[in-house]
């Protein structure tokens, strides 16, 4: 490549000093040459990508932050602040014709924040929601952080958490009862997500074991259940929950809609978990079953101590993906009239004071879901690496 690399015959054998690599292949220049400009096609792609980023990113930052308004009474106030920035008399001025909104009106989100978080949960009782969020943080921490002091106690607490929180929110412990149709926003998403995740995992594992059972009746029932649930969309099942399920109950039973939806969501994701876990079970070599048998372990002990720990370890990515899917699918409840964050956002958009600010609302909800789901998937990657004992 360069002159410095040509061997100098004057050196004694073995005395040749180590030359530094050519400048063009190291450092920033080398990286750019290798990763951005390695072939004509790559050069073209880099140029196109840079042009795209150059046009999109500045206008995005401008819309998101620079021109954005954070404090306003209503939509028109927001827009006037954008058109006449720094003008103390902006409220008395008319908007020009054909005016286009140059920035985000985040005042809308701030204005609706408590709806987005609590739904219509009664104002004086909101400390219960806050307390249950705090309890959720402790429960999640105990599941995720394996060096937590007194972890065993906290794990039992995490198992009890859904019941404790449910009781707290609906109004046990002598608290005033709150109707479940007032639940909404992020609170509703978390209720659906956490309950679905906690109950669908054990149910899914049982279904997976049932599907691999040697007893034909058990196996066929599990297969029928799993294939039926996986063959229909969640929307249809939610419609079943909202319209049909009451007919299945003894006459006169009042069956809360939230509970019906929770059951459907749990069954739905359990069927998917079952298939993921079945994949994991199939990945366990037969020798493991035989080894467990030869130790004299019975079916349940063999599964609990030998088979499932290994099978679940290889199914982690699939299980977490199912959880992420479940978490995202909680938005579908808006179609049967429940107000999750997206439902709150849609109904806020119908308010004449703020109408037309769809971008802000959708972006806010998208960021909320992105943060939750992306951290779940990152955690699963971390867990997979941590539990990886192979070579």
């Amino acid at each position, binding site marked *: 490549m360069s002159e410095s690399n040509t061997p100098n015959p004057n050196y004694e054998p073995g005395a040749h000093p180590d030359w530094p690599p050519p400048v063009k292949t190291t450092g920033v220049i080398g990286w750019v040459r*290798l*990763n*951005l400009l390695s072939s004509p096609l*790559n050069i073209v*792609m*880099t140029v196109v*990508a*840079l042009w*795209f*980023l150059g046009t999109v990113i500045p206008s995005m930052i401008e819309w998101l932050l620079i021109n954005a308004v954070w404090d306003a009474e209503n939509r028109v106030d927001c827009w006037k602040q954008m058109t006449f920035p720094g003008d103390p008399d902006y409220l008395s001025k008319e908007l020009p014709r054909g005016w286009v909104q140059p920035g985000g009106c985040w005042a809308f989100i701030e204005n609706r924040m408590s709806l987005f978080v609590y739904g219509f949960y009664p104002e004086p009782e909101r400390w219960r929601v806050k307390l249950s969020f705090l309890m959720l943080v402790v429960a999640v921490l105990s599941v995720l952080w394996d060096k937590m002091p007194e972890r065993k106690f906290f794990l039992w607490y995490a198992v009890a958490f859904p019941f404790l929180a449910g009781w707290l929110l609906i109004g046990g412990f002598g608290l005033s009862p709150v109707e479940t149709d007032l639940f909404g926003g992020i609170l509703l998403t978390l209720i659906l997500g956490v309950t679905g995740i906690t109950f669908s995992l054990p149910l899914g594992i049982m279904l997976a074991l049932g599907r691999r*059972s040697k*007893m*034909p*009746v*058990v196996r066929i*029932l599990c297969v029928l259940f799993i*294939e039926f649930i*996986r*063959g*229909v*969309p*969640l*929307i*249809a099942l939610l*419609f*079943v929950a909202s*319209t*049909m399920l*009451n*007919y*299945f*109950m*003894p*006459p006169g039973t009042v069956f809360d809609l939230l509970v019906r939806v929770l059951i459907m969501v749990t069954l739905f994701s359990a069927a998917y978990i079952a298939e993921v876990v079945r994949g994991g079970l199939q990945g366990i070599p037969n020798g493991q*079953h035989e080894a*467990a*048998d030869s130790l*004299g*372990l*019975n*079916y349940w002990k063999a599964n609990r101590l030998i088979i499932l720990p290994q099978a679940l370890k290889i199914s982690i990515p699939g299980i977490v993906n199912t959880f*992420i899917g479940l978490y*995202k*699918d909680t*938005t*579908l409840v*808006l*179609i049967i009239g429940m107000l999750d964050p*997206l439902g709150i956002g*849609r109904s806020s958009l119908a308010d004449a004071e703020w109408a*037309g600010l*769809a*971008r802000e609302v*959708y972006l806010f909800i*998208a960021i909320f*879901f*992105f943060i939750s*789901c*992306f951290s779940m*998937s990152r955690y699963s990657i971390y867990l997979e690496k941590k539990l990886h004992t192979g070579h």
Partner: protein
Amino acid sequence: MGAPTGTEPSSGNLIARLWGNEETRSVIIQIVTLTVVFAVLALVVRNVAINFATLGKSFSFDFLFVPSAYDITFSPFIDYNSRDTHLRAAVVGILNTLLVAASSIVLATVLGFIMGILRLSSNWLVNRMVYVFIEFTRNVPLLLHIFFVHGIIITTLPPPKQAMNIADTFFLTNRGFYVPAPVLEAGAGVVVIILGLAILCVIGFWHWAKQVQDETGKIYPVFWVSAGVIVGATGIAYFVMGMPLSWSIPALKGFNFKDGMALKPEFLALWLALSYYHASFIAEIVRGGILAVSHGQTEAAYAVGLRPNRTLQLVIVPQALRVIIPPLASMYLNVTKNSSLAIAIGYMDVVATIGGITLMQTGKEMETMIIVLLTYLFFSLLISASMNWFNRRMKLAER
């Protein structure tokens, strides 16, 4: 099951002894399970009967033959108006579901393969940009994507009067995307038959070419020959029959466009959102599949003297496809099922017609939901059966 057999307790009654034996125990468990399941089913049926009786409802599918009295704005395949029956409305809904599912599957596959290959590009910038897009799309609910695209179409696109005009043939407005519609004239049938025959010939040629390749290793330019046969034969037939195909070009008349074909905003939004959302999953499947083919395969192919394009065609792609197809099939199933979100923006698919308006009008929850569930079950089983068949064929190549 895993327990050692034949460890019956030496003493104890009959039940304990039966329970101690693995085979009899499994029979007992199955009988109990079956009894419980049937008991629950019987209870449910009884409850339904009582509830129906108290509400004065009946279980029958007669409502299907009653006029529906509601309009469906988007019915590209069959004629429908509000005097038609609920059954016809259901058929329109099913066809709409199939249309949006099939077109989303095609677009999602194309986009997914492009993104998956770009994710493997050595160009760092492109690689990262696609990564950011994929992660952001995957981690946001599909319903939000659908609302977002629908919102963009109906609020930021111009009304028909100021339509975005592309070469006077395509018009983009907030009422939909207007495209030319093909009009078949006399003799067009012959062209279609010739096209069908050409496709059959090409499939025969594929089989023959594969046989020759398996036996002798000789490779025919399959793609060019098939393209030539199809385009050539159809083209000749087209000109011989006197060009029996014309295009009806959309044009602005009054407040809206006439002629041509309109892709309604609801269809467009659902189609685009379903496509790019699932494409971001397909991209990861494709990337994983290609990475799963070990680098040694490429090196081995180079070592026996194959050029890069032949290596890709004969070594990498067939092995990668074997990894890609099973998850791809379940993704296609997901697209079909997720098309049910149509109801959120008012696209009239099977859930919105029979499971939505018909249900509201007739109050036949049980019957309409059964129809909806059976429809989806049928298509899901159809897709998974055909994908299993395809998968088996790919597997046979294994030695």
